[in-house]
């Protein structure tokens, strides 16, 4: 602020022409811990477009396609920094996928659409409905996300639940479920019944589901349910479908799931659209029964310190520019200016793993909704939709310097193996340097949860590898289904560097034998 004021004072005293002070007050970013490793920039937005970014993808030639809050799709040419508008008039598009130069898939509120430029003039003239066989109640919270390309060539989309914050339209699309509060009460007694319908509800088909669609035919397969507000869909390098979801009812904190066909991932509302559902009101089932049905999250994002509202999931490309992180999975976040890494592993048939910050810089701003890599630049599209967030598109370019960072974390029978980007200092065998806490979140209907059953992590032994790039720590005992959150800020590299991202949280579901 002081700097800005002095800048503007300078411009005023220098040239006090009528419009003199309207000149740009160039704001120099505060140097932060991430600046030596990542150069953060921004794109100018096209004129007359509300710059909230619903979706981002790259064309093979490095151009970037983006969809905007008011329904436009634009294509950015980095070479000359220009935008060309491709399509317009879409209903809250929240994700897009480039098929080729003349074809883009976009998920808008009412449908998955193929936008085609049939005459080759660079502008879409054909808006083809690829899939719209899902319900719309008119409730504002029924956002639709995706599409993301699966390794088999199909695409994956996800459908939000409706929110108790509002009732439904008089006319809906699709059949209205007769399970639970009768439909007419949504109109006549909303204020009285809103508590009964559930904080989030699914009264029209496939709300709370992840759906796989064949882009050639539009044939859709409801893939998995139990979701609340699954903004982030992605695949890891091994081809696992990953979906994240937002803290809220039935979500003590935000979560990431490894999603299998037919799975149920915790939020009960969507269960009534399972084939052969027995007609019971899902949210009134005993928690023990739901617990048996569900697959718990592979990774919890502890609320407050890691992510409050996770977004796009993608992989860091396997190019030299991204150094040791190549091939790892990252996740965006709405409420804080950060992108996180997720380290997954399968133990005894169960997926679990860790999360830690990757880049956490105020320069990135908030609302980091969509992430796409192109030509060694990471483009970050921001939105808010009236919640916490921001706007525009940021760029992240690696400088080539690699920070001292945790590279990987794996569970061992009695503890964890940490791998680092640099050799550790010799004193790292001291157990007192490996501190942290463990805790869990309950599975309950309430909105969010405090961390419960919290205790300090006690490390018994630390063993370094010969090259000191990895360390195995051992614990006296396990608390299952706990997050082990380490605070490694007391560690140093042999070079003297401090860890760039000292907090790492591992969700323990199973321990290897």
């Amino acid at each position, binding site marked *: *602020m002081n700097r800005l004021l002095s800048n503007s004072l300078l411009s005023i005293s220098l040239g006090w022409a009528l419009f003199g002070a309207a000149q740009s007050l160039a704001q120099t970013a505060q140097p932060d811990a991430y600046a030596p490793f990542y150069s953060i920039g921004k794109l100018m937005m096209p004129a*007359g477009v509300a710059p909230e970014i619903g979706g981002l993808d790259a064309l093979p030639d490095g151009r970037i396609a983006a969809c905007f809050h*008011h*329904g436009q799709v634009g294509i950015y040419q980095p070479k000359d920094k220009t935008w060309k508008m491709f399509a317009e008039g879409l*209903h809250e598009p929240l994700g897009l996928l480039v098929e080729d130069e003349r074809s883009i898939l976009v998920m808008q509120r*009412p449908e998955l659409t193929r936008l085609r430029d049939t005459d080759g003039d660079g502008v879409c003239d054909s808006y083809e409905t690829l899939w719209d066989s899902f319900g719309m109640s*008119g409730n504002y919270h029924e956002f639709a996300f995706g599409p993301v390309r699966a390794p088999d060539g199909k695409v994956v989309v996800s459908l939000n639940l409706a929110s108790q914050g509002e009732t439904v339209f008089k*006319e809906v*699309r699709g059949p209205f479920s007769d399970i639970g509060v009768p439909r007419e009460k949504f109109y006549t007694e909303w204020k009285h019944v809103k508590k009964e319908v559930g904080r989030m509800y699914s009264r029209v088909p496939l709300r709370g589901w992840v759906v796989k669609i064949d882009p050639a035919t539009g044939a859709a397969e409801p893939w998995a349910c139990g979701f609340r507000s699954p903004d982030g869909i992605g695949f890891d390098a091994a081809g696992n479908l990953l979906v994240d979801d937002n803290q809220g009812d039935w979500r003590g904190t935000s979560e990431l799931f490894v999603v299998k066909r037919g799975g149920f991932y915790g939020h009960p509302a969507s269960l009534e659209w399972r084939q052969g559902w027995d007609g019971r009101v899902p949210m009134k089932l005993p928690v023990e029964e739901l617990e048996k049905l569900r697959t718990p999250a592979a990774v919890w994002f502890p609320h407050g310190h890691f992510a409050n509202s996770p977004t796009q999931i993608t992989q860091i490309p396997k190019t030299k520019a991204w150094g040791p992180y190549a091939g790892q999975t990252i996740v965006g976040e709405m409420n804080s200016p950060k992108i996180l890494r997720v380290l997954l592993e399968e133990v005894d048939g169960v997926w679990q793993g860790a999360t830690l910050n990757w880049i956490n810089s105020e320069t990135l701003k908030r609302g980091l909704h969509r992430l796409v890599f192109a030509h060694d630049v990471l483009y970050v599209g921001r939105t808010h939709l009236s919640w916490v967030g921001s706007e525009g598109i940021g760029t992240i370019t690696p400088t080539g310097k690699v920070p001292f960072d945790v590279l990987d974390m794996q569970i061992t029978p009695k503890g964890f193996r940490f791998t680092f980007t640099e050799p550790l200092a010799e004193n790292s065998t001291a157990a007192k340097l490996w501190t942290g806490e463990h805790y869990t979140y309950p599975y309950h209907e309430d909105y969010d949860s405090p961390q419960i059953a919290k205790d300090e992590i006690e490390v018994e032994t630390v063993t370094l590898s010969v090259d000191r790039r990895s360390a195995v720590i051992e614990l006296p005992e396990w608390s299952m289904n706990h997050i082990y959150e380490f605070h490694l800020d007391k560690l140093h590299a042999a070079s003297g560097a401090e860890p760039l991202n000292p907090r790492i949280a591992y969700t323990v579901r199973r321990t290897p034998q």
Partner: protein
Amino acid sequence: MPRPCFIPCLALLLATPAFSQKTAEQPKPQTIKIAMRDGLRFDPPRFEGKPGADVVISLENLDSTDQMHNFVLVKPGKRDAIVDAALLLAEKGLALQFVPPGSDVLAASKLLAPEKKEPLRLTLPKEPGVYPFVCTFPGHGLVMYGAAYVGVKMPLLRQDNNIPSTAAQTFIAGGGKRPFVQRIFMPDSGPAAIAIALPGDLNACWDAGQCRLRYVWKGEFIDATRNWAGNGNELPTMGGKRLWTAPVDEVAIRFGKATAAAPRPKFLGYTLEQGFPIFRYTLDGVEVREKIAVDEAGNVMREMKIAQAAVEVRVGLGSNSKGKIYAAWNSTSGTREGGTLNLTPEEAAAFKLALEPIKP
């Protein structure tokens, strides 16, 4: 969830009898979000409030071109004078946040740097009127302004002389372009609605869930300010007059007997021909093309193509609609039977419907 904090801005809220500082114990005041944006504009550029109401103007500088902005609410007719007075502050301006002293200023925010927010809490004047607000940072005020409608109903966006015309365009879907197609929630329609702006101030709402035209109106196209400013819950508003509305339960197209079951619609999308949409859908598997355009006489026209009907086609003309009807559909072919147009399969292959005014 965002939790606005109500921090009163003691130094800068210049109290007058009409505007008094409120403490945090008061009941929830109405929150009005206003962003400062690229191109020197307030978003949204106007709002309505009740005389004497407590409000929080939730300001945020989202200008990506690194400009500083403030928000100064002034007495009616005083906008230009305040902008001039702010300029004359010259070197003293910055210390005063470019807010000139005097009773013409009713409330003012701090000068906000990019990314900064301020919840400006105030009481709207008791005297109904249109109160301008403006950014008094030197050079901004000539184009960066808006209006608070206190106890006065806002006119249609494009007829509003109290806001810059460029600001109005931003919220009329398509920015005034005709023809134009915008998918958005619409009143009196299913949720998969499509709004269509046509030449001659004509507009239509087409329902992609039910694959049928719902209504036609003449006047301003949709003002999406409230829908776009929030999470999508608020419906857009529209100006002018409904010319025709399809009955809620009408079956738009039926095959065979008048008592035949309603066919199952499946929406296939649309192409744009010089901006006019040609909707494609199937009804029980029979493909229909429906172009929404304007004919030579300036009436809304539906160019219909039902290529493979095996039996007679019955088109509902919506003449049983409740309420006043100002126009009716006339066809180039087929025979009328009450509110229905009957076509042979050959006639149905290509026919036109024009919405012609009914002479009173």
